């Protein structure tokens, strides 16, 4: 709870900071504040509690994920400083929006009441709408914002309908109550329908097929900073929330639902990977790869009992790799009019470090050992096989093979093509963020227990 309040407070502070004209300090202050909040959050790890008659429930799960979100936000905020330096007047808005977005996400993993959940998801989405369209004069950005907004609010409508049906069936918004009731028999048919609708809404948020169409366009159109936010933070949040919802509303999956999950998972990863193969635009490519990763994460839901750990690890691995790669991508494409792969030609020679980092993060996404992406995938496979769904795993493996194809397209460009233009010196912050992120990734890759032991 304190986390949520503190974050909101920090957001407000950032807004006010504009008035007192503290732009220079803003980024460091925000980052430090977030660090402090991180500490605060972690301090709550061992003490599960619930606030305001179960509006907010703090437990290991919520703390672990909140911490992950905060770390990601720190990285994103750190990057923003340089990214928005050409329109300084707006910087505090951007930062505060990001922090509010964080507030939304924290609410989404620590809600104890559907209304809190709804507020959280709306805060998150609305902030994202703004960020997506934030480049006012850029048609692409506008289009991205428009598309995201339309489809997003459509999805919210469906989620809202779902919530409404659940409420109608149980008469409660409180998760605990609903959970108890849902165990008993005699639930009207609206209840499962409502749950289904909520889940569908979340599937839209994590861009799982067939609700993925918005993702590539929005990712491509939005400013790179926003794309980074969406593909790392937003996706992770949505996934965690989806798990939390399913776990509370539908603890035992009926075989029918399992089949449905299998289908969605396979569909998402296949569509994502196959589509990614032929992309020229890096952001678009990562969007599709994100879709395929969504497929992987959905797979985790097949073994709900162990899913929490698996998801935490997978999302951490994926998001950290994403941050690292986006740090590089943002820097490379900062003053380019497009994000084509050709921009990365010869990076291996002009800037070995960034090239190495990007390579590492791509390898992590491809699931090559010592990078945490490998263990993430492996745990997923192991649990899914334990749960007895070999088919999904085989499909997943085939997909990982395909995915190597496009990840390496980028690597090949960096190491075998000749550089087109000389790169300017890299601002420290990019390198710092990228290195930190990839180091974290590797660390949890070498000692997965650091993460896996948290929730068990």
């Amino acid at each position, binding site marked *: 709870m304190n986390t949520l309040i503190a974050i909101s407070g920090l957001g407000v502070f950032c807004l006010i900071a504009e008035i007192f004209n503290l732009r220079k300090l803003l980024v460091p202050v925000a980052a430090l504040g977030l660090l402090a909040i991180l500490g605060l959050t972690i301090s709550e790890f061992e003490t599960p509690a619930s606030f305001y008659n179960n509006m907010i429930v703090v437990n290991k799960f919520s703390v672990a994920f909140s911490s992950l979100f905060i770390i990601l936000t720190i990285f994103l905020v750190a990057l923003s400083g340089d990214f928005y330096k050409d329109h300084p007047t707006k910087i505090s808005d951007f930062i505060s929006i990001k922090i509010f977005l964080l507030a939304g996400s924290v609410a989404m993993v620590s809600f104890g009441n559907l*209304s809190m959940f*709804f507020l959280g998801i709306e805060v998150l989405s609305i902030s994202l*709408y703004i960020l997506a*369209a934030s480049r006012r004069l850029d048609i692409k950005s506008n289009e991205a914002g428009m598309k995201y907004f339309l489809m997003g609010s459509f999805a919210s409508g469906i989620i809202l309908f779902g919530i409404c049906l659940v409420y*109608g069936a149980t008469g409660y*918004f409180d998760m605990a109550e609903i959970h108890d009731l849902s165990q008993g028999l005699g639930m009207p048919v609206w209840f499962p329908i409502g749950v289904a609708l909520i889940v569908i809404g979340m599937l839209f948020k994590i861009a799982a097929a067939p609700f993925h169409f918005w993702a590539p366009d929005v990712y491509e159109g939005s400013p790179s900073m926003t794309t980074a936010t969406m593909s790392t933070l937003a996706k992770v949040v949505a996934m965690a929330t989806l798990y939390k919802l399913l776990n509370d509303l539908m603890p035992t999956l009926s075989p029918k639902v399992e089949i449905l999950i299998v289908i969605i998972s396979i569909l998402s990863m296949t569509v994502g990977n196959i589509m990614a193969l032929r992309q020229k635009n890096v952001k678009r490519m990562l969007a599709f790869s994100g879709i395929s990763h969504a497929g992987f994460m959905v797979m985790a839901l097949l073994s709900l009992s162990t899913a929490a750990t698996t998801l935490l690890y997978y999302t951490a691995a994926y998001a950290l790799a994403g941050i690292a790669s986006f740090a590089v991508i943002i820097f490379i494409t900062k003053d380019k009019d497009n994000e084509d792969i050709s921009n990365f030609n010869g990076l291996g020679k002009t800037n070995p470090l960034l090239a190495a980092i990007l390579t590492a993060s791509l390898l992590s996404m491809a699931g090559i050992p010592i990078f945490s992406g490998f263990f993430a995938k492996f745990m997923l496979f192991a649990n899914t096989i334990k749960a007895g769904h070999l088919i999904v795993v085989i499909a997943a493996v085939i997909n990982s093979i395909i995915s190597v194809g496009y990840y390496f397209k980028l690597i090949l460009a960096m190491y075998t093509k000749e550089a087109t233009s000389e790169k300017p010196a890299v601002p420290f912050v990019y390198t710092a963020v990228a290195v930190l992120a990839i180091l974290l990734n590797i660390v949890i890759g070498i000692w997965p227990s650091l993460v896996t032991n948290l929730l068990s």
Partner: protein
Amino acid sequence: MNNILNQIGIENYIFLSVLLFCIGVFGVLYRRNAIIVFMSIEIMLNAVNLLFVAFSTYHQDAEGQVFVFFSMAVAAAEVAVGLAILVSVFRNIGSIDIANLKNLKG
């Protein structure tokens, strides 16, 4: 109040709001004008709100109605942002026909 509900039966409320909701959906699907699409979305939300109220009466508890306020506020915020985006779109391409937004594809 309650007895009215008993007379009419909760199902009808559900059917009604589902109907409204579907109208909204179809509006979103078939209209190209962004404003109308917004309105259709609003219809969807309000259909749900109606159902909320009905349910809250049905369960004899106020939470549902409180939630309606939540959702209204949220909807308002959403539409505000949406309109802002729409304005900038209009500034850039001089039209609010969502069919024109096809630069991002493939």
